């Protein structure tokens, strides 16, 4: 439907997607294929940013259900995506995986929620913020990035009434430094907050440490290389809590995730390995 540049190097792709507004849960993803050619061959996973219904002004056209994904131009596949035009067809598989658990699907809806996003990791947090706000939670978003152009969607969150705090490595937007330092301060201010995070692995590692120290419940959304998205290829596995060489406990990011409760994962070993 549309393919808009949100910030330098980041695009928002709107796709006509019947039933997605009803089906898609916060934190779920889709596997997208934009060509029937063999290069790129595999689909790519994208977190669902938001869904909605576009009311056409013209009574001839029925309301159109749609979903949005946000992508960063990093290689061949995402470069091709920038050339998509309204009317082009894409091959969509989803919604896939397990999303964030809050409210009805968790024991209690949190009163205070801290959402931590690193760069494009903010994407799956938007629908979560919508849900938490609907449930009456006080939602605060902490966003980190290398530089100001890596900070996305602040306006969209603020429109929901979410307080937003930004930290960038170079100080070009918000405060200079790591978003985890902001988290540390917020955790001491809101000791009963639930934390929901998505971003690069080193950030998630630091977030997990802070939350463990503060005994704050944490859910993380992981990113992984994926081929199938349906739990068959076992390419996207992460080590589960009980993992050891003798008793392997691998979890599929696609099928059992991409959102995990922090205590489901083996934090002593997830770092590093996926940094290659």
């Amino acid at each position, binding site marked *: 439907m549309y393919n808009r540049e949100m910030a330098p190097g980041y695009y928002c792709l709107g796709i006509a997607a019947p039933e997605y507004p009803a089906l898609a849960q916060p934190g779920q993803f889709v596997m997208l294929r934009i060509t029937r050619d063999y290069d790129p061959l595999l689909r790519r996973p994208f977190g669902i940013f938001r869904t909605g219904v576009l009311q056409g002004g013209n009574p001839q056209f029925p309301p159109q259900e749609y979903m949005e994904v946000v992508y960063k131009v990093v290689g061949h596949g995402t470069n091709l995506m920038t050339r998509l035009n309204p009317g082009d067809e894409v091959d969509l598989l989803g919604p896939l995986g397990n999303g964030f658990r809050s409210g009805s699907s968790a024991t209690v809806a949190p009163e205070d929620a801290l959402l931590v996003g690193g760069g494009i990791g903010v994407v799956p947090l938007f629908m979560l913020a919508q849900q938490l706000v609907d449930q009456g939670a006080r939602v605060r978003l902490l966003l980190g990035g290398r530089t100001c152009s890596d900070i996305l969607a602040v306006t969209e969150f603020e429109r929901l009434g979410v307080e937003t705090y930004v930290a960038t490595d170079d100080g070009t937007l918000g405060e200079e430094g790591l978003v985890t330092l902001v988290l540390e301060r917020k955790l001491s201010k809101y000791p009963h907050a639930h934390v929901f995070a998505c971003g690069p692995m080193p950030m998630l590692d630091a977030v997990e440490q802070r939350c463990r120290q503060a005994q704050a419940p944490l859910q993380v959304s992981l990113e992984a290389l*994926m081929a199938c998205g349906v739990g068959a290829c076992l390419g996207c596995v992460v080590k589960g809590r009980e993992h050891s060489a003798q008793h392997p406990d691998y979890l599929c990011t696609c099928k059992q995730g991409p959102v995990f409760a922090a205590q489901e994962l083996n934090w002593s070993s997830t770092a590093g390995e996926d940094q290659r």
Partner: protein
Amino acid sequence: MSTHANKNPSLEVNIAGLKLKNPVMPASGTFGYGEEFAPYLDLEQLGAIVTKGVSLLPKAGNPTPRLAETPAGMLNAIGLQNVGINAFAEQKIEFLRSISTPVVVNFFGNTFEDYVEVAERLNEIERVDAVELNISCPNVKAGGIVFGTDPATAARVVRGVREKLKVPLIVKLSPNVTDIALMARAVEEAGADAISCINTLTGMAVDLQRRCLRLANGTGGLSGPAIKPVALRMVHQVVNSVSIPVIGIGGIMSAEDALEFLLVGATAVQVGTANLVSPGAMSEIIGGIENFFLQQGIEDINDWIGSLR
């Protein structure tokens, strides 16, 4: 247009006594244990289901990254992660018993004794309709030499498992050999009832920015359309070297690809990487084969198989 154009062509093929309603089945490791794909296609539609490889003990698999995409292909180094034969017998086969499509269980071992023991166990499990022996594994006791690259070693494993089994034995050949025909004849002589080929081609990918190998394992198996010409050549060569049925594998993405393998003499085909790209891929391929035969006025798939001029 011919008078029989509206008659549905027969796609039925026979692999060593195993009757398949059509020649299309998944390649091991790209279809889980079947259940994962039930939401995306009708499993009853398939010629057979081939499971992920099982071993005696559960296997953790390799560290990540396990995947690297390459032009028109992908490298994988999953490392044969699987639940082990016990969990397979207790949890995974149950679902497959609920469908009538023949079940082919792929298996492997780290030693000769492992292979034989898994074969013994598989023989006891109800609804294991055929087995597929993966010999592309390093022989731990023999210093890591791959079973499937030495004709004598491969023949010994085939003989060892053959005498434990009452169901058809399909032997899956590795392409990473100097002469695949030699391997094919060796396993045929040792008692294989059918051959499937090819497994993945060993490859590598590097990351220039980080100056490292892209797979944690270093090397991985190349699959996808990139390997199809190599696979076709090898299937053709094997078909002409043995008299047992051959199942063609390697980069099949479409009905046309499958028809090419059948034309050079494969009795059936396995679809691998395509399942990962589109979980419903085999359904389209089966439909495409049928349509092609309808257009060509071919009533029986067996008139097409090996009919290369």
